[in-house]
Structures are given as C-alpha cells and as structure tokens.
C-alpha cells in the first residue's frame, strides 16, 4: 500500500490531461449538441504542432524550458486551425441536418485527420520522439514528481481558472452561456451564435493542445493514433461529469484518471484477477 500516494498523484496528473481534453467535448456539445469525435485528433495535431516547432523551427539544441512556451503556442495554433476549419467546412453546412449526419461526419473527420498526419508528417508512420526534460524527479515525501509533469501541474489549474473566469465574467462568456441554454433566444439578444460556436471550438482546441504537449512530455513520443484512446477516455470523462458542464468535465477527468491509475496498480493484486488480463485493465 505504500504506492498509494504516488498512484493518486499519477492518477490526478493523468486525469487533468483527460480533463483538459474533455473540456473541448463538453463545450462543443453544450452549444451545438454535437459529439465531436474528431476532438481526439485535435489533441493529436496539437502535439504534432508543438513537435514541429521544436524539431523544425527552433535551432537545434534549444533548451526545452525556453522552447516550451513556443511549442504550446505552435500546438495551439495548429489545433485551433484544424478545429475551426473542420467546424467551418464539415459541421456548419450540417447545422440543421438530422443529428446523425454531423456525428458520422465527425467520425469521418477523425479518420481523415489521422490519415493526413500518417501520410504527410515526416516519420509519422511510426511513433515520433518528443523532446524530454533531463534530470530526475522531485521527491515530496513518498511521492516523486517527474520534471515533465510540472508543466501539467501548472498548466491544468491555470487553464481551468482562465476558462471559468472567461465564461462567468466576460461578455462573450455570458453570450456563450446564453447560446448553450437557448440558441434562438440568444440570437434575439443580438448574439452572433455562429461566432460563439467558433469560439467554443477554438477554446476546446487550445485546451487539447495543452493536453497534447503534456502527453508528449509524459510519454516521450507522439503518434497519429494517440488521439483515439485519449479522446475516448476524455469523452468518458465528459459524460461522467455531465456533458455540457465544464467543471464536470475536469472533475470527470480527475475521477477517471485516479480510477485508472489505482485499477492498473491494484486489480492485478486481487487474487484471480490476473487471469482477466491484469494490467491491461487500465484501458477499460
């Protein structure tokens, strides 16, 4: 049981990553009732965007601490561009179509984005290495925190505070709430709901890019399929937190991350459980 604090911390870290992605599902669903199946790929392209900055734009051997802010910005630009373009050309034309049409389109967009990265990103047919922080972990009592995780520890809460402030305190944030609650009436107030939809996609994409960078830092590699499992888990987190609820999405992510982390560690210790796949349970 001495691993418990460490597993809790791992779970919270993993969970805040899921939560960051889940925010995108929940915001888009809250406003246009679309489960954007391609959101996992928005996360993936964000990670590749950050990798591009580090590998192809910055001079060789740039310190990761200096590169990181630029990588985040690059990742966000790519994610936001992909999200806004797919919204404009894939989802918007289907705004008044039956619900199933945009859902199927979203699955198509998801596969297309994966294939585009696979086909055109240099070396993306296999995993590509993501830059890593050197140095060993920090010890806090029984818990070790890896340098890679510090980014997430700082970025996840900051992002959530930013989002809550934006939604609750700004004029555009209130317009977003109104659009989510009653889109026709929002238009009667003079709110350009199409613009609000684009903003929701963009914010979700920026959050996904942050998660993409932290995924790269944690696991040391990125690949064109990374959005699938992460997206599925984040979607589960969004549902767990009550889809449409941004705080719920974060909380759902944390709960899921902790559950996954503890299950992966402890289920295999339960006698008999190993017959059912042991560690493989973490992906349930």
């Amino acid at each position, binding site marked *: 049981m001495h691993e418990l604090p460490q597993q809790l911390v791992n779970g919270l870290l993993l969970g805040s990553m899921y939560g960051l992605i889940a925010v995108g599902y929940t915001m888009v669903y809250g406003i246009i009732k679309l489960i954007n199946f391609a959101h996992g790929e928005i996360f993936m392209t964000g990670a590749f965007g950050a990798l591009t900055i580090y590998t192809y734009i910055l001079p060789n051997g740039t310190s990761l601490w200096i590169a990181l802010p630029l990588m985040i910005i690059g990742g966000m630009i790519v994610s936001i561009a992909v999200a806004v373009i797919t919204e404009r050309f894939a989802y918007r034309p289907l705004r008044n179509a039956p619900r199933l049409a945009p859902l199927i389109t979203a699955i198509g967009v998801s596969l297309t984005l994966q294939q585009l990265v696979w086909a055109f990103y240099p070396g993306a047919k296999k995993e590509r290495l993501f830059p890593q922080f050197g140095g060993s972990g920090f010890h806090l009592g029984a818990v070790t925190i890896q340098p890679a995780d510090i980014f997430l520890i700082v970025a996840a809460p900051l992002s959530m505070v930013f989002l809550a402030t934006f939604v609750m305190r700004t004029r555009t944030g*209130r317009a977003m*709430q109104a659009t989510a609650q*009653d889109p026709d*009436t929002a*238009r*009667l107030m003079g709110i350009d709901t199409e613009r609000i939809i684009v903003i929701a996609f963009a914010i979700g994409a920026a959050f996904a890019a942050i998660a993409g960078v932290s995924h790269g830092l944690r696991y040391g590699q990125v690949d064109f399929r990374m959005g699938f499992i992460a997206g599925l888990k984040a979607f589960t987190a969004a549902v767990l937190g009550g889809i449409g609820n941004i705080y719920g999405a974060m909380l759902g992510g944390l709960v899921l991350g902790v559950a996954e982390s503890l299950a992966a560690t402890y289920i295999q210790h339960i006698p008999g459980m190993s017959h059912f796949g042991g560690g493989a349970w973490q992906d349930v």
Partner: protein
Amino acid sequence: MTALLEVEDLRVAYGRIEAVKGISFSVEAGQVVTLIGINGAGKTTTLRTLSGLLKPVGGHIRFKGKPLDKVPAHKIVELGLAHSPEGRHIFPRMTIEDNLRLGAYLRKDHEGIEKDVQHAYERFPILGERRKQAAGTLSGGEQQMLAMGRALMSRPELLMLDEPSMGLSPIMMQKIMDTVAELKAQGTTILLVEQNAQAALALADHGHVMEVGRIVLSGTGQDLLHDESVRKAYLGED
C-alpha cells in the same frame, strides 16, 4: 407618413406547409397593434419571421423603411426591434441580472445600461430582490416580467410580445396586462400577440384576427371588441 413596421403579403412555410399565407399589416410609431387568433393561426410564426429566426418564402417586411427579410436574426435587435418570445424563454441557469444585461448585449453605453437595469427593478421590484438568483427559479409570472424587462433593455423602437399572459393566474395576468398598458402610456410601440383577446383588444389601437395563416378581420381595438363574430369566436359569448 410611413409606418414603423410594414408587412406586405408575408408568407412563411415550415417545409412544404405554409403557416402564414400572405398577410399584410402595419404598425405606426406609438401604436399598440395586436394579432389575435386561436392556436395554430400563425401568430408566433409571424413574430419569429419579423425577428429573423424564420425566413419568409414571400412578401416584404420593412422596418423604418428598410427591408428586414434578409437581415440575420442577431442584427435585428440592433435596428430597434425587440422580441419577448412565446413561452418566455429566459436563460434559466443564469442570474436574473445577467438575463437583463443580455437584453442590452449590443449596447455600449454602460451608464445607460446601469440606469435601465435599475429602472427594470423599479418596474418589477421582485426581480430586484432576486437579482442574483437563477432565473429558472422564478415563477411563470415573474419569468414573464423578466422576459419583458430583458426585451426592454435594448431600448427598442418596437416591442413584440408573444402571449405575455399565457399560463398565468388571473392576478398575474392582470399585472402583466397593466404593465403593457403602462408601456403604451409611456409611448412604447408594441406588437402584441394574445389569446386573451379581450384584454389585448381593450388596449390596442388596431387589431387583426388571424385564422389558419390569414388575416380575416382587421379594425380598431374597439371595433373588434364590439364585433359580433369576434365576440362569438374569441370572447366566449354566444
């Protein structure tokens, strides 16, 4: 003098079903005009078309002399046309104050907005007492006050009210109609849709009776109030 709002041969359809089949009427500044008629007559469809939520299949709408039928919904309130929709449609999970402020979403005059929020609280004290409460917790009548207050926050030149008395207790209904009368006395131009024909006609300068998408009878409020067929069909007399 050209009217504030002119509707000419307006036709609106849901798919292939025409719900409004060529209606014409106008509203002059300072007037109260009412559309009455039984369920499904096309009253709500007409108002939703005027505020751009539905696109007409034919006819013309002119507001202050400018065509309105191509203007997107979110640009219409800016022109001075506010709509308090049927069923109130307040934003239930936002506070009363946020609801009111959304009515002034496009206004930039912060002092004027503050004054108008205070004014709304004076007009409807209950809203002021509960300003920080979620609007969904209000009673039906209070929600109606909020919906009207919110529509007024844009300082409209024409206020459209769709069945403000729907589903309210007689006392509340009276209160809402008193408010409409008060707004009229203050010079607000109002296009009022009501099933409560008696109350609406008593207030209105002009009335139009709609039946299955057409205006079948028009006149001054008083004329219609004393019209025999109207009394039979809408005022429950025989």
